[in-house]
């Protein structure tokens, strides 16, 4: 009987063995077999990342060559007066994208992330891009605004930024379309 009474004290020793942490715990000492497998998995993961990089570029070159490429980005600056729900994009009257945002994606935009919402091809010449922003404005009122841009598509790739920012003087959101070369 006494033997297992003493065993009850074991957890105490174990409890005091390690510090407690909010950070990632260090790896336990690896066995040779496990170490080899871990190294293999890490190596594979690296190769898969590199392969995905190459395939990402290949896909872009194949589907959206620079001569016809147009990319539309959405960004947010401050965003106090507008809580974004969705963005719809029409090019030459045809809907090409209609994106509904999650809370996490909105947060990503607010922290400086810029979303490439559409990547496509356009012939050289003039095209009309219309973007509709829906969400909630001040006092939780539903809000829908549009912004129009005439794109003069030349030989190189064209990047269009749809920027949602705050117009402090009017306490209203502002939707700006900016073209990057």
């Amino acid at each position: 009987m006494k033997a297992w009474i003493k065993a009850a004290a074991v957890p105490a020793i174990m409890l005091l063995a390690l510090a407690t942490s909010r950070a990632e715990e260090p790896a336990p000492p690896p066995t040779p077999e496990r170490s080899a497998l871990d190294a293999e998995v890490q190596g594979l993961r690296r190769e898969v990342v590199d392969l995905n990089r190459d395939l990402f570029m290949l896909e872009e070159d194949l589907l959206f060559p620079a001569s016809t490429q147009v990319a539309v980005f959405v960004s947010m600056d401050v965003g106090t007066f507008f809580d974004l729900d969705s963005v719809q994009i029409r090019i030459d009257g045809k809907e090409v994208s209609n994106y509904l945002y999650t809370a996490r994606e909105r947060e990503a935009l607010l922290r400086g992330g810029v979303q490439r919402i559409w990547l496509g091809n356009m012939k050289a010449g003039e095209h009309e891009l219309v973007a509709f922003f829906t969400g909630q404005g001040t006092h939780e009122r539903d809000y829908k605004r549009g912004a129009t841009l005439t794109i003069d598509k030349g030989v190189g790739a064209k990047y269009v930024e749809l920027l949602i920012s705050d117009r402090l003087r009017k306490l209203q959101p502002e939707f700006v379309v900016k073209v990057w070369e």
Partner: protein
Amino acid sequence: MAAVPAADASHTGGVLHSCLSCHDGTKATGKPPTHIPTALECDTCHMSTAWLPARFDHAGVAPGTCAQCHDGVRATGKTPTHITTTESCDACHSTIAWLPARFDHAGVAPGTCAQCHDGVRATGKTPTHITTTESCDTCHVTRAWIPVSGVDHAELPAVKVQDLHYGDVLFYFFGRKYFEALVRLSAYGEQGHLAPHARDAELLRGGLYLSLGQHREAREIFERLLADTTTPAQVRDRAWFYLGKVLYATGNFDQSERALRSVSGGLPIELESERRLLIAQGLMYRGQFDAAVAELDGWQGPDNWTAYGRFNLGVALVRANRAERGHAMLEQVGLLQTTDPELLALRDKANLALGYALLQAGQPAAARTALDRVRLKGPQANKALLGAGWADAAGGAYQQALVPWMELHGRDLLDAAVQESYLAVPYAYAELSAIGQAVEYYEQAITEYDAERVRIEESISAIRAGRLLTAALAADSGAQPDWFAQLTTLPDAPESRYLYHLLAGHEFQEGLKSYRSLEAMAQNLDGWSTSLGAFSDMIETRNSAFAGKLPEADRRLAMVDVAEINQRRDALHARLEAALRDRDTTALATDAEHQWLAMLAGVDAELAAHAGDASLDEAREKARLARGVVMWNLDAAWKTRVWQTQRAMRELNAVVYDARTRQAEAVKARKGAPVRAAALAVRVDAVSPRVTDLAVRVAAAKEAQGRRLADIAINELEEQRRRLDEYSVQARYAIATIYDRASSGTP
């Protein structure tokens, strides 16, 4: 069999199932009107020491019929603040205790946690919770509040991007899609989009590799950034910090400490606190407890971090044989006034550590006080209850020890503390000379151990048959498995019970993360394999479409002679120049004016043929006047016409330039399209074997990783089985001893 006398309050006569002979509502307390309908004897559910807590055996109750008794009158029902549901109790609660309840979050839409977790119906944010408008599931998983699945400790402040592509990477990074962010970061870097953010991008790349568990790559990147003398101080500090983290995570504590100490003070407060604790923890892992004490003594950071610092300081002091101060420090954490779930868990841990440390130091009363502070619903509850019983037993208060041990008795037998309680309860009864109960509980222990043993064996067979990982991955069905994240939900399969247990182990958890990342890789490669087939088809289709359109395109190109257009444009230009030089107003005359001039020239010629005819003098005068009017008009319109013609020439120049450019492009495309298509085909052909080869290697690694996980699980379960066997032997030995003493008349 004789009934137990009413005066025998201890009920230690050992006679079972004779309660109703006294407890009939007249001689002694009987069933109240609201008692659940039953014909069973009192001692089926109640103990002889008190009516409550009662232990109702739910074994015979049909699933989904809980509300027949649990209606708030006959037995506890739903509280007013219970979450809205029409489900039966057993959908979430077990028959052992209301809490912990296991709510299946599978059907809950992401981001809607606050509909229940509002602080009333279910746990909400505590007053000390960090300020955030995020939903709970941004940081927490559904299994437990802590550990959090990953708080993004503002590792990157809000960024003003100077290149949209870098912003696109950040969009995925802030959205915690680390693999996608890394792929885009690498691709955009290759495409030359990230130049304005080169160093930040490199720091981010290192951080992303670290998030994916790629320690070697992360380390290389941070070391490279640090070797570059032009790296700004702020980036250097972060690089040193993350390098320290990589080294710590890989167990290189010496190097980790050196890296962490190289930070020159430019970190935000959260990272600075983490740095300090990492240094101390590294020292503790190396057994340098005095150094760890020196590192943490007197340190003050943000509240949460300070509490961790004090806990670790307490542990370090105890380990450095400075028990008294160590106990005091642990007590400080153990007496924390907080509602923060993370700190409550830490407080439990401190009280538990302190309780056992005091037990070891021979201070059972003080140990009991510390252990009593551990919450009954937390993960440390079982160990605390066991310890509390031992603290009482150490002082000879076996009756009192039975209270925590009986509370443990009936909890999940998977827990080592619960397993021990099955021996502790009869041990206490034996010490109290309640031999009948002691034997009964020893026998129950043997039965339960055997049943658990059978379940373990079944689970081992299931794991050998590969069902463990199928179950673990099925929990993610319908969603792309994360690349390097912890499992957030578990399926309701027999093996799941053990998965919870196994997941507590670092090795299994890391192994499972690797396995799931291999599964994600396999799915990724499978997707690309399909896409590559489509790419090849696309190139082929384009080639044949090009070949089909080529004759017509060639015909059209041949029709357009840009050189001839150029010549004509040049001739026009020369004529305009000459007209301007000579102020030749007739050069810009309209067709009508030319007709007039031609007509006047004809009249002039006719009049000249009759030069001596005086009768034509009037006609001559009229012709002169008419010419004068035409020339006057031409002169008056000259400036306007020059401006209009020059504008028309400029427009013509632009059109001719466009035509020339387009023709050049058409010719270039005519020549370049096949070359480009061939180059793309070469790239597709080159990458295809890489995909196939990687898919094979990933599948093999996944299989090996699966075997490794199964081995870990089986070893762990076999260890459990061995422990149960030992306990079973001890129970049998105890029974034999009791019978032996009874037969020999030994007290």
